[in-house]
């Protein structure tokens, strides 16, 4: 299977602070990888480096064989790498349909195209399709401000998917969403992921979610990856339990940290 993402020695420093150090990771196409770690452990730094938001201090990143180090979000998007945000980044003053039409127009347009209206029949069709897949068709003509948080997260992820990425990075997709909705949200997202054959990397604090949806886990602590491997193996690891999930008596590694603060 193809290697889709590979980092070597990836590091990021802020002055004397080590945000991330020597991350070596290889992800093959089709994998669903969970990224766990307590706050400040380096997960978001890692995602931000891979998605072009932060330039690395050292190391290399290759996407699909070619180096993407230092490329900005726009170029990465065109290469097939998309991300969603912990706090949904949406255009609140526009309707859901317009948000999606904008995303489509952005990903396809050349300059003069931009003088044409945003809503074209093709774009509306594509938008409607993803709205159905994500189960948020009822908000189609509503302003984003009228949507609850869970729906907004789905919209945020939908926008990331519109670019037809090969790899999707989700930053805490269930944060800020109520516990009963989390699973519905993830079910919906993973359904679309499977259908489109995407590779997914997502940051998550809820170990139940992690166990249910991923095959592989990377555990971060203090800026380095302390364990990387199959789900059960990582979650059972002593160090991981100590530094990330917390020592638990009992068989299920459920950890609903008070990190609902995504809103």
């Amino acid at each position, binding site marked *: 299977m193809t290697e889709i993402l590979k980092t070597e020695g990836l590091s990021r420093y802020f002055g004397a602070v080590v945000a991330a150090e020597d991350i070596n990771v290889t992800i093959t196409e089709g994998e669903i990888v969970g990224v766990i770690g307590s706050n400040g452990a380096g997960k978001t730094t890692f995602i*931000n480096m891979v998605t072009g*938001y932060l330039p690395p201090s050292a190391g290399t990143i290759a996407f699909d064989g070619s180096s993407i180090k230092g490329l900005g979000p726009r170029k990465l998007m065109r290469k097939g790498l998309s991300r969603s*945000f*912990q*706090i949904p*980044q949406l255009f609140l003053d526009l309707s859901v349909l317009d948000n999606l039409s904008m995303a489509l127009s952005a990903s396809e347009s050349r300059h003069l195209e931009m003088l044409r209206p945003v809503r074209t029949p093709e774009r509306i069709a594509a938008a409607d399709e993803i709205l159905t897949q994500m189960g948020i068709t009822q908000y189609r003509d509503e302003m984003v401000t009228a949507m609850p948080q869970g729906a907004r997260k789905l919209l945020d992820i939908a926008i990331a998917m519109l670019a037809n990425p090969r790899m999707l990075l989700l930053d805490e997709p269930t944060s800020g969403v109520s516990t009963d909705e989390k699973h519905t949200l993830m079910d919906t997202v993973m359904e679309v992921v499977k259908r489109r054959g995407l590779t997914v990397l997502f940051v998550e604090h809820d170990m139940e979610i992690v166990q249910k949806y991923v095959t592989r886990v990377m555990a971060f602590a203090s800026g380095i990856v302390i364990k990387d491997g199959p789900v059960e193996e990582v979650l059972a690891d002593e160090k991981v339990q100590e530094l990330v999930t917390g020592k638990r008596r009992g068989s299920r590694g459920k950890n609903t940290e008070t990190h609902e603060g995504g809103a």
Partner: protein
Amino acid sequence: MLTVWAILIDGLIYASWLFLVAAGLTVIYGVMRILNMAHGSLYALGAYAAASAIGWYYNGGGDQLWIALAMIAACAIAIGALAGLIMERGVLRLMYGRDEVLMVIVTFAMLLILEDVMKIIWGTTPYFAYQPYAAMGRFNIGVLTVSGYQLMVVGISIAVGLALWFWLERTKIGKILRSIIHDREVSEAMGVNVKRMFTITFMIGAVLGAIAGGVTAPIISVVPGVGVEVIVVAFAVVVTGGLGSITGAAVGALIVGLARAVSIHTMPELELFIVYAVMAAVLIFRPHGLFGQAVARKI
């Protein structure tokens, strides 16, 4: 060779004046993230107040230079503090939390208001307050002559710079202000009374602007509009040096002062153009100015 010396001396004198004008502007921005367009009005208020005081004093028969200078200082400080207090408490308070650019428009509105307030109080005929300038004579530096008054301005500027530095680095209030500059939210979370600090900062910035105007009054004819022209140059200084940085204001003042001196001696029509060209050049290499900080976007 003579021209080089002339340029250097002119540049230095002008730079010291620029620093006095720009210091208040940059301090306010650093702490409050407000670019105060009305800073020019505070400068003008200081100039008018000083000119009035000097005129009153000398016409009443006074002739002691040091009294006149003290009056300049006192009037400038008084009017700066008063105007600053009214502006901050009366207007800015109502608008906090708004977009940065909206705040600029708010300060622009205050500029409009103050320009007319000054016209109403002082009229439109020019005020002259040349007496202190004349009383300080001229000195020779090599073959060039410089006025004593302008040398004094250089001294005042250095003193103000040192005082600001000392205040920010060594006093408790200074430390609090620096923490606010660094991160307002964190400071608030740590219990800093940001509102009161804002008032104090704004008043200090206003006083600095007024002092710059007061000190300049004896050198110019004080007319409506002096404040606005000042703001344009002050902005170039502050941007070149980096918004919010006092060191930046000092270095920016030196650079702009020298650039202007060069222009005046070679191509006077392009004075403002050269100043801004230099600023643009700096910005190409350091987009936030020499000592400015990029404000990190938080996702």
